[in-house]
């Protein structure tokens, strides 16, 4: 694990943004998502664009067809018991048409990303359509 942190880098700005996002979204009323990508040459993990997505549809449109991405998602839920919960998860978006080089690049950084962003759970999705089932998957957890 430590070998990964020597390979992939986070700029201090990115780390700050991650912390702010994690702390700031637990009070929100609608879903909040940010997309992270890994630069192929510098192996730096940073935010893909400066937008916070509140709509899963828009998020799906932004995800590229043939490249993997990490998405940090905070999703307010009302559980069947009536309780309000805002789980903070990471979505590991990996389309089947990616080449092996990209797959290995993102797979190696998965755990590092999980720890740096301090998320609870990683959900793997294959296509942008899988985003529609996210709510069901989040509710399914105890």
């Amino acid at each position, binding site marked *: 694990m430590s070998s990964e942190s020597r390979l992939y880098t986070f700029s201090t700005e990115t780390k700050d943004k991650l912390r702010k996002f994690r702390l700031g979204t637990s009070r929100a009323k609608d879903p909040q998502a940010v997309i992270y990508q890994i630069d192929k040459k510098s192996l730096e993990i940073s935010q893909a664009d400066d937008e916070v997505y509140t709509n899963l549809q828009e998020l799906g449109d932004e995800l590229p067809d043939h490249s993997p991405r990490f998405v940090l998602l905070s999703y307010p839920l009302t559980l069947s018991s009536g309780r309000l919960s805002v789980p903070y998860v990471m979505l590991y978006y990996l389309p089947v048409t990616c*080449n092996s080089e990209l797959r290995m690049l993102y797979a190696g950084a998965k755990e590092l990303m999980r720890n740096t962003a301090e998320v609870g759970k990683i959900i793997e999705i294959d296509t942008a359509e899988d985003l529609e089932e996210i709510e069901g998957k989040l509710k399914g957890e105890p």
Partner: protein
Amino acid sequence: MPSSEVHHLFHHPIADHSFSADRQTLAVARDNNVELYARSGGKFALQDELRGHDKTVTGVDIAPRSGRIVTCSQDRNAYVWEPSPSGWKPTLVLLRINRAATSVRWSPSEAKFAVGSGARVIAVCYFEEENNWWVSKHLKKPIRSTVTSVSWHPNSVLLAAGSTDGHARVFSSFIKGVDPRPEPSTWGERLPFNTVCGEYLNGTAGWVHGCAFSPRGDALAFTAHDSSITVVYPGGPDQPPKAVVSVGTQVLPLVSLVWTSESEIVAAGYDCEAFKFRGDEQGWELTGSVESKGRPGLTDQREESALNMFRQMDLKGKVKDDTQLNTVHQNTISTVRSYAENGGSVSKFTTSGVDGRVVVWSL
């Protein structure tokens, strides 16, 4: 006067062949490899061999403008071969199919190629610049069985495919970013990927072997295992076709076809010779064989002398020497392709077959 240029390359079946744009290079699929022959004088001499596939190569196509070669094989892979000063460099394309690939063709724009497979799927592949990688998208619905042949429409978006489920279909393989928006045509207007623009059966719902669009793309012809050729003239998007003309023949099934003009087709198959068809929306008919029987080149070995007759009886127990077919090809013709054009119609075409011969025919 019909004449032919015969090249008997070797004694193995040729699954598919393709000529380069200048017709100086011939690529021929032989078992697990593809052999490249260069024209020297009147003959073709072996120049190069493309090794890489683990199983029989089933399809070869040379792109006319870029010179790239795409090959597909029963090992479920396809390779794109780029010419370079130090030889041909293969790039593996992950088709993501779990059965053999059966045929491959470059689109007219050469930005994509389509691979038919036994996995009930057509893989349409294009190069993604961003990731430096060939990506394959699948055309799945509603194919129910092996895809035997694929053919492109001139606009590089519409793709015809024949399948052993008895249907010939026209799909849209439009890919955003790679294809320019196609003009509306009789096949359809708004055409997202995997739209079925038409699905056609022939009379007996037999296996469809070969399919081809007419030169302008306004009609589709396909051959089936019941020895028929069917030509479809579409009526417009979402409308029944203007005409579906089926011609039954008494010859053995035709496997491959090529349009020589807007109203003529040449097709060949298990009868080891090529046949000409002519027609239009009102009807089509078989107009004859491309070969004329009793050609001098073929009969000069047969002496009708009494000496020869007794020699034959002694050697083989028969009076006549009829071990050779009286057609140029001695075994099934597997591929027919256009070779040269003259004022919009094909003047020469080539055939290759199971006997290892590639023949250039003049019309």
